[in-house]
């Protein structure tokens, strides 16, 4: 540095006249030199002022004893010297040392990248701000999807194409659902499904798979409330009730009525809209179960399976007396009423007005006035 400086000074002094001419452009002729000299003098004074200021500052620091405070012993000075190597910051630390390291999650036992570890733990353990929000969103959307899923199980007569389409639809929907929640999710669903052991994610999936309701576990009131809002048709395979709406296209009103008779007794309340829409045409894929159900209505056998119906005599026994007493039976809270083969779906929960329905044929007409009375009760 000093060598360069001395060289520079030598060059400078030799070229001073040259330089002055280059810098002098704005000033006019003969006064040039004088003004230029003046300017230089002023400049020199300013620089000397600056130097003097520094000297006073240093001298005061020396005399007050704080001049050498930033220096410690040689050892510490060397230890904290500024590092100037490539790939390393001035403290000598490597920048992305932990980027490539992986940590094992204590929850799900997966290897996660270090920089993603904290957000993963948040989701995995179900703590933290966003995890509950995402889980709720997943539950809400899976609710809609679960009905289609339970219907897949019902339609055993559908061919394999439909089944795989349904599964595809399910995965596709789930994938889009995930991408809505967080933009980074691109893992395959199967991977996720298999490996989430606990936490909110697992719960939502479990909910999906177990949405079918088994009527055996429900009490009469619960059954009634379910049947008033849901289709409720019991699948032959899984013995679970369909959770779709009352107008679900997978099942007919006949089926729904059959279920209600089965579950609530022969004098069960009417379906709210079904009878008005209902026709006698059966264009349903699974005609056979339906026919068997119709047969029960006539013979008053339990509607689930023709095979199992004869086995369960209790139901039929309990129903027969009620059936014979048709017109005079008042409706109790168990949902009585009479009506041998006629089914009336649940329009309200417990106390229904007396619904006396005698035959199948009269069903459409008779149900109209009771419906309005049901609604009055509800209101």
């Amino acid at each position: 540095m000093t060598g360069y400086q001395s060289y520079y000074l030598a060059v400078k002094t030799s070229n001073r006249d040259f330089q002055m001419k280059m810098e002098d452009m704005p000033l006019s002729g003969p006064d040039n030199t004088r003004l230029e000299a003046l300017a230089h003098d002023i400049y020199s004074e300013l620089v000397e002022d600056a130097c003097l200021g520094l000297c006073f500052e240093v001298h005061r620091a020396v005399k007050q004893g704080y001049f050498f405070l930033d220096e410690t012993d040689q050892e510490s000075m060397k230890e904290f010297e500024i590092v100037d190597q490539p790939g390393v910051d001035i403290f000598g630390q490597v920048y992305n040392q932990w980027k490539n390291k992986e940590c094992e999650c204590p929850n799900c036992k997966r290897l996660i990248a270090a920089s993603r570890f904290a957000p993963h733990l948040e989701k995995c353990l179900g703590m933290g701000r966003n995890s509950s929000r995402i889980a709720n969103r997943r539950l809400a959307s899976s609710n809609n999807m679960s009905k289609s899923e339970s219907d897949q199980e019902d339609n055993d007569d559908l061919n394999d194409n439909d089944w795989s389409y349904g599964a595809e639809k399910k995965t596709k929907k789930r994938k889009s659902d995930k991408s809505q929640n967080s933009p980074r999710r691109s893992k395959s669903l199967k991977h996720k499904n298999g490996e989430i052991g606990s936490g909110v994610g697992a719960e939502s999936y479990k909910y999906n798979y177990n949405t079918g309701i088994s009527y055996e576990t429900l009490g009469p009131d619960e059954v009634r409330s379910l049947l008033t809002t849901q289709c409720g048709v019991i699948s032959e395979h899984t013995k679970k009730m369909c959770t779709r709406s009352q107008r679900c296209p997978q099942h007919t009103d006949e089926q729904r009525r059959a279920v209600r008779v089965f579950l609530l007794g022969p004098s069960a309340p009417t379906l709210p809209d079904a009878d008005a829409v209902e026709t006698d045409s059966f264009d349903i894929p699974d005609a056979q179960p339906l026919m068997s159900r119709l047969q029960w209505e006539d013979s008053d056998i339990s509607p689930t399976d023709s095979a199992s119906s004869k086995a369960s005599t209790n139901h039929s026994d309990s129903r027969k007396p009620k059936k014979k007493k048709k017109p005079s039976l008042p409706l109790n809270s168990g949902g009585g009423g009479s009506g041998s083969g006629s089914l009336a779906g649940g329009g309200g929960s417990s106390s229904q007005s007396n619904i006396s329905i005698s035959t199948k044929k009269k069903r459409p007409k008779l149900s109209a006035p009771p419906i309005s009375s049901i609604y009055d009760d509800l209101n």
Partner: protein
Amino acid sequence: MLKRIMSKDSQMRAAINQKLIEMGERERLKELLRAKLVECGWKDQLKAHCKDVIREKGLEHVTVEDLVTEVTPKGRALVPDSVKKELLQRIRAFLAQHATL
């Protein structure tokens, strides 16, 4: 003759200097120079040189004059060209405006 010119010259100088001070331009120039010197590292360089001088002379016996005589010439030399040019330009501008010749 030379004396008259010189006295005129010195008069002019005195007048200009006075104007500089009165208008506050000198203060401004001084602050500008200080800031630029700190920015370019001149101050730290010179401080390091001071440390050497002090270690040489001994901490207890350093005087202001010692420091001044040691430091000023080096300081003058160490000013970077860009800073010098800028300051000279400003001075010239001032002179062009206010120098009555």
